[in-house]
């Protein structure tokens, strides 16, 4: 099966080199061929499994908690670019 790696790379916001595009296109085609075996199975009435375990709802009071006073500092230290202590990003338009 042929897949349009260039289009997928655009959707995923990943830059690929020409060599990577060629290589992935062949490899992913082979992997997708392997997946065809799933079509043998009749799954019409099977419920899809989304998670690993039985989950229960977690309720708590809607109260703000100051959980990590130290966290702000550590998080802002990781910013690649800042202005006046705020996160600086390139312009959108």
């Amino acid at each position, binding site marked *: 099966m042929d*897949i349009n*790696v260039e289009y*997928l*790379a655009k*959707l*995923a*916001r*990943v*830059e*690929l*080199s020409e060599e*990577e595009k060629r290589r*992935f296109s062949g*490899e*992913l085609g*082979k*992997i*997708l061929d*392997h*997946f065809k*075996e*799933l*079509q043998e*199975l009749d*799954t019409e009435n*099977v*419920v*899809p*499994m*989304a*998670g*690993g*375990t*039985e*989950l229960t709802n*977690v309720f*708590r009071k809607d109260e703000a908690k100051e959980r*990590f006073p*130290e*966290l702000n500092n*550590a*998080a802002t*230290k*990781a*910013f*690649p*670019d800042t202005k006046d202590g705020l*996160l600086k*990003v*390139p*312009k*959108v*338009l």
Partner: protein
Amino acid sequence: MTIKGFHEGLVDKKFSAVEAIGGFYRTIHAKDKDIHAFLSLNKDSALQTAKVIDARIAKGEKLGILAGIPLAIKDNILISGEPATAASRILEKYSAAYDATVISKLREEGAIFLGKTNLDEFAMGSSTENSAYGPTKNPHDIIRVPGGSSGGSAAAVAADMALGALGSDTGGSIRQPAAFCGVVGLKPTYGAVSRYGLIAMASSLDQIGPFAKTVEDTEILFKAIVGKDELDATSHHTDYTNGRNKIKNLRVGIPKEYFAEGLDSEVGDEVQKVIAALKSAGIKFKSISLPHTRYALSVYYIIMPAEVSTNLARYDGIRYGERQSADNLFELYKKNKGVGFGAETKRRVILGTFVLSAGYYDAYYTKAQKVRTLISNDFDKVFGEVDMVIAPTTPTLPFKLGEKTKDPLQMYLSDIYTIPANLAGLPGVSIPVKGRDGKLPVGFQLIGKKWREADILSMGRFYESLD
């Protein structure tokens, strides 16, 4: 040395924590040039903690079993203020902002973190060859891989550079390297251990678990990290020791699909020896079938990349990591990931984007989720008749570096026996087959019922106790 032995030596004052930790760093400096299990070391804070432990001993305080125990931590688990690269270039300069819950829990016990260990980038791989910082080598034969993705953690324990370690297991990333390195590795039930502070790969499959030399030590570490955490909504309360079953009452299933074509004969023979030894010690076995096993690899390689492509969207260079220069935001996102991600990461992001894209979602992603249900149902059915399943951990012996890097599908097949437990959310432990001195290690796997780590660990301890 074991965790238990170290603890006894410490409280009997045969050595001090500072001396012992210094000794571990000397071993690391001597051996790790060849093995490359560690990506970073935190000697200062480790020795600081060791001093505190020694002071507590001097005061006559009663120490918990993990106090002063040197551990190695996979570099996708956060330790506040320490690097957490996930073996990716994109996080090369990142410093963790907080402790993962497993780290806070071990810290409370007084455990010592020697350093962070190598892995396949973002835990994607079966050999640690996908690390941006170079591969780890198998301590039993350094021309061979240690397995992956938690290869650094497994190798650190195998080479006596730590007494225990933490890893993460999404499709076998604890059990497979444990088997290749000849140590014990446990993947707990999905939800048994908090994933808060674990760099996410595939969130419906990821689980943190311990490595150690013996099953007993593995259980000591597991006990310290298990439990519900309000910071991980998928974590679950479990009193896993509740109602410990009598070992002779536990029935073990032998699934024919795990001993079929594709299994290396040496590995198969060794696992049969384990079965024979347990049988003659009075354990009851039963032949069973898990008919959808052969589809597990396809299901996994649809669901996992789908989740990977979503989880890794966050590495856009906006809030952390190194930022490339670009004219606009779209170019910036593209460039950051293009430069920061390695080949396997890109491959999985592209594959995941494909299976989730319009027109293919139902045919691939929904279909895989449905077959995941069938695989899980297979286990539910057999767990009516048996308490656990025994299988090889890996289809082959540890392979050579470079042997499988050219063909992704061949590499993916190394996880064929470990993936089903992740898909079904079940606990699995890999235990070294005994009597392999001087030969490459072989691991066998016990897969248990949900929340029944106690059963598989008891059986593992029983096997270790046999002559």
